[in-house]
């Protein structure tokens, strides 16, 4: 039916439709929302049109689609790409401040070589030839001896395999990442159960969100795309949001219910809820019996011991709320979901917590349903040939044997590993990482990077002179994200997409993108390495884009340059659900055949894991599962069904079923003995952990990080708002300011991780007169920067503590005492005892699997007074 506006208004007038429909119009706009941009002209009027260049954000790792507007060769404005199915034209404050990232006076523009001792802060500008020749020479000399003596450690990679390619080309397996100080226990908690390392809840269509410690409004993975849908779900769909958190994040503060919870007890609350759901007959037993490797009866019996009363004792969450919420959640199925990114995994029992919360979805059967807990969707590409072979030797630093299940490195252990001589290094290169700032026990990294014997040659690929690159021998200036080529795909929406990061503006100095540096190094090392790097970063990206199914026909990279994303779905596109239920075909004899159409071999059936698996003799693996008289591709697990029971964990002495153990160090606090507290850290919406401090518009809003403390807890210690306090952990203390707030659990204090740089430049340190000899000054900063409080960074006093399964740092477990500062204490004082830090590291190794000398693993598995 085609109506014009006048007809519509008539209908509206007659039926009152115009009024009654108004609420659904909340998103409509009369002017255009975006997609083009103009400068300010005279008298505030319209000026010049600006050129839009689609690209992908990297202020944080959500990877939103952007339109970058350029005027006279300068990046002047950024907005969300309206065609992007995740971003939908909207970006966050950090994304908006991307201009600052490109032009920050904190940024360095030239290759620098250290003169004087490490840490003395004396640099000289050198040419790229000088820098790369020296580095290539050192690498060449080292790999002739042992390639594993070259280490590459990244914080945020996003090179779509380029850094690994470089390391494989030189034959080294010694790589480090940042995953263990981020989310690895969440990944490990999920992967064995259903394959992928993350979930993509259908927030838009859900009715009930059970949020365990995730800050979806501010900082969780895919917050920018998820919050848009969550808001739609809440406003249009009336979805209820229930949040368990120790702190009143923006998410908790906006939830229908905030339930403060004792740190590290999410798992037991989830298990108690699962128990209630089973007891009340609200579980989807058919789904459990068909699609998991346990039966509903087994599960019911297993869960019976986790009562709400027991969970209340552990978590402080009232048993009656646990009961009520469990029932509400189950009754909303399949329009219900949990979300956990990533609080529950940040504990010694992190992987278990993740597995317990995941169980709630499995038992109500909302998996991959509309409005439910969905599998992530992504798109892939292939990298060009020739591909270097895998390195011949393993690296103990990369994959420490104590953590056989931690498939995402345990990189926060690296400093101790090197200092204790577990593996010799001759060249250490780090990239987009700030180990002396971002790690727990960060002080040990200072010791390491200053040690010229253990670390004879160090190279930082960094945009800034950071706490870490300040200790390097050579700094290679990294270009900003507006000057590089990368392919990207993230499960940030239920419609999969692929996008790219392309250069938007020229570098203001001599910076280069990391791919370009590695390629140049490879060629300088010699043809055996250089042969894998014939393509330029742009050609490499072009190859990747052409390999995406369906994209080459549309123009490959040029399509991406025009639209920023592939596919361009349009507003009517709807996601598919229950993607694991792709049915297998049968051959003429009635046998199921391999879903790989090129293979199509008849499959053999065998019983295992409480079900029937279908094996492909050609692929030599299980490719489907038979349920009733049908067969499906299922989940990416050994049986293609959900593994509630994880055998691999059992093999290493851990519990195979969703399980909870209390964190030993928290026992006294929970019992009300002594006056210790748990210190947690957190993120807010205007910063990522380290590098956005250089963005003036973000640091203007958030530049300090007082310790949050409950009024009751503060009163017990005679602490008032703004008072200086001393926070002491088992490895040291810091002196900061107190912010007294009702929005925190009385047994917890919290310090954000965004503040307190002691290196970086004038913006990060709020020193407007600070000279920028290797950067470009910004008159706005040198004239107008008005704040002076830059906060105190907490990571130095946080001891290493590692989840023995997933390998994550237990960021949210630190036991501290808090008192008013002493008369001699100064704001910003940080003192650490590195011997105590080393002991903490060894203590946590004790929790590792018994198979590798751990002594406590068995105990945490038994020590349950449950």
């Amino acid at each position, binding site marked *: *039916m085609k*109506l*014009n*506006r006048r007809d*519509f*208004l008539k209908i509206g007038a007659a039926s009152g439709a*115009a*009024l*009654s*429909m*108004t*609420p659904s*119009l*909340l998103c*409509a*706009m*009369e*002017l*255009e*929302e*975006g997609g*083009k*941009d*103009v*400068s300010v002209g005279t008298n*505030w009027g*319209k000026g010049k*049109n600006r050129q839009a260049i689609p690209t992908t954000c990297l202020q944080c790792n959500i990877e939103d689609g952007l339109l970058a507007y350029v005027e006279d060769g300068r990046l*002047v404005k*950024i*907005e*969300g790409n309206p065609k992007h199915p995740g971003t939908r*034209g*909207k970006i966050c*404050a950090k994304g*908006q*401040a991307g*201009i600052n990232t490109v032009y920050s006076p904190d940024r360095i523009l030239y290759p620098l070589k250290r003169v004087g001792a490490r840490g003395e802060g004396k640099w000289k500008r050198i040419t790229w030839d000088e820098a790369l020749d020296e580095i290539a020479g050192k690498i060449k000399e080292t790999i002739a001896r042992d390639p594993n003596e070259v280490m590459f450690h990244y914080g945020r990679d996003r090179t779509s395999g380029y850094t690994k390619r470089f390391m494989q080309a030189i034959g080294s397996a010694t790589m480090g990442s940042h995953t263990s100080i981020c989310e690895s226990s969440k990944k490990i908690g999920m992967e064995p159960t259903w394959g992928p390392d993350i979930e993509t809840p259908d927030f838009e269509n859900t009715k009930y969100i059970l949020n365990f410690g995730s800050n979806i*409004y*501010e900082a969780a993975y895919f917050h920018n795309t998820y*919050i*848009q849908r969550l*808001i739609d779900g809440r*406003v249009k769909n009336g979805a209820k949001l229930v949040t368990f958190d120790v702190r*009143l994040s923006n998410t908790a*503060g906006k939830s229908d219910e905030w339930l403060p919870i004792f740190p590290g007890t999410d798992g037991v609350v989830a298990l108690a809820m699962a128990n209630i759901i089973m007891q009340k007959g609200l579980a989807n037993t058919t789904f459990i019996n068909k699609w998991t490797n346990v039966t509903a009866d087994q599960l019911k019996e297993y869960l019976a011991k986790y009562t709400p009363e027991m969970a209340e004792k552990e978590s402080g969450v009232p048993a009656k709320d646990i009961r009520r919420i469990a029932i509400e959640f189950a009754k909303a199925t399949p329009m219900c979901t949990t979300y956990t990114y990533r609080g529950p995994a940040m504990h010694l029992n992190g992987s278990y917590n993740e597995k317990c919360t995941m169980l709630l979805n499995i038992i109500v059967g909302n998996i991959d349903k509309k409005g439910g807990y969905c599998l992530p969707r992504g798109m892939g590409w292939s990298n060009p040939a020739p591909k270097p072979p895998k390195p011949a030797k393993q690296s103990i630093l990369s994959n420490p044997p104590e953590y056989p299940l931690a498939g995402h490195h345990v990189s926060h252990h690296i400093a101790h590993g090197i200092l204790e001589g577990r593996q010799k290094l001759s060249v250490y290169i780090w990239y987009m990482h700030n180990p002396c700032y971002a790690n727990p026990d960060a002080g040990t990294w200072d010791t390491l990077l200053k040690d010229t014997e253990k670390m004879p040659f160090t190279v930082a690929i960094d945009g800034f002179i950071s706490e870490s690159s300040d200790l390097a021998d050579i700094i290679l200036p990294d270009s900003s994200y507006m000057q590089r080529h990368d392919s990207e795909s993230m499960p940030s929406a239920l419609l999969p997409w692929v996008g790219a990061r392309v250069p938007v503006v020229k570098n203001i100095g001599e910076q280069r993108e990391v791919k370009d540096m590695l390629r140049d190094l490879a060629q300088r090392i010699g043809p055996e390495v250089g042969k894998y790097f014939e393509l330029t970063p742009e050609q490499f990206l072009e190859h990747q884009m052409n390999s995406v199914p369906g994209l080459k026909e549309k123009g490959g990279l040029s399509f991406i340059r025009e639209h920023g994303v592939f596919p361009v779905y349009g507003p009517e596109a709807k996601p598919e659900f229950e993607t694991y239920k792709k049915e297998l075909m049968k051959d003429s004899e009635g046998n199921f055949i391999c879903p790989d159409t090129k293979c199509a071999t008849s499959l053999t059936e065998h019983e295992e894991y409480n079900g029937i698996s279908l094996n492909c003799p050609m692929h030599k693996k299980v490719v489907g599962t038979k349920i009733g008289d049908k067969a499906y591709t299922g989940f990416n697990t050994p049986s293609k069904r959900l593994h509630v029971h994880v055998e691999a964990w059992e093999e290493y002495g851990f519990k195979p079923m969703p399980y909870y153990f209390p964190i030993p160090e928290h026992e006294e606090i929970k019992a009300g003995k002594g006056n210790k507290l748990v210190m947690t850290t957190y993120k807010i*919406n*205007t910063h990522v952990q380290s590098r956005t401090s250089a963005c003036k518009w*973000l640091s203007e*809003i958030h*530049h300090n990080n007082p310790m949050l403390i*409950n009024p009751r807890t503060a009163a017990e210690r005679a602490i008032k708002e703004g008072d200086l306090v001393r926070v002491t952990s088992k490895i040291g203390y810091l002196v900061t300011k107190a912010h007294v707030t*009702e*929005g925190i659990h009385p047994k917890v204090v919290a310090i954000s991780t965004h503040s307190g740089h002691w290196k970086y430049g004038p913006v990060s340190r709020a020193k407007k007169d600070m000279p920028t000899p290797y950067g470009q000054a910004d008159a*706005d900063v040198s*004239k*107008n*920067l*008005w*704040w002076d409080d830059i906060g105190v960074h907490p990571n130095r006093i946080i001891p290493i503590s590692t989840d023995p399964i997933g390998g994550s740092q237990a960021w949210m477990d630190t036991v501290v005492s808090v008192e008013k500062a002493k008369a001699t204490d100064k704001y910003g004082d940080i003192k650490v005892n590195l011997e105590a830090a080393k002991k903490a590291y060894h203590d946590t190794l004790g929790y590792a699997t018994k198979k590798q000398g751990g002594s406590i693993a068995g105990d945490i598995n038994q020590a349950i007074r449950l």
Partner: protein
Amino acid sequence: MSEVLVEEQTERRDFIKKAALGVIGVTAAISAVTSAIPRKALEAAKIIPTKKNQFGMVIDLRRCTGCRACQVACKAENGVSLGGFRSWVNYTEAGAYPKVKKEFTPRGCNHCTQPECVKACPVKAISKGANGIVLVDQTKCKNLKRRIKKCPYGAIHTDPIILKANKCTFCLHRVEAGLVPSCVNTCQGRARIFGDLSDPMSEVSRLIVSQVTTTLAPKIGEPNVYYVGISAAGNTGTDDEWMKKNREFSMLRK
């Protein structure tokens, strides 16, 4: 129904664009649509078709995520220096543990119908433009700071470089190009709705009629930014700590 809506929005877009550029007579537009909404409702909401355009905004706080993208987008869009905000978001925390809630209140110029700042400026540097947008003529401004204090909403600051009054223009340059203001463009929660309040069929007018809205305290000068779901605490007008400090700094400027 959605088909109709799409159709209607597209046409409205063209229409408003032309109206903003002054191509279409506003009165003609109004007479064509006034029958759609009962006059009583319009009167109750103080939206009475007039011969004058008045751009305004509805901010739906149920949708605001407190992300402050609007605040930063404004800096980029309008080249606002450090030490001043044309657009900012205040946070309020209300209640006692464990029953505590947060509220976010995006703030800025209300482009009042009877602006106090216009009255206060002795050199007549501030005026109401054709679209009802309150604008500072920086060539006339003498930085007398009188209007900074006079604005009941704290929406004017001194630009530290040129030492002239600076405030929100509803991104007039974008509106003239047929685009929503930058804060609306980036709004993560789609909480900000912008349009012509003098047109009873505009989305902003309809929202004001159909939703419970209120303007900011002290409601002096007939403000034209309406809030859905604001609480008493959120409406106190108290700035966050960093914003207070920023203002102190701004007032020190000569």
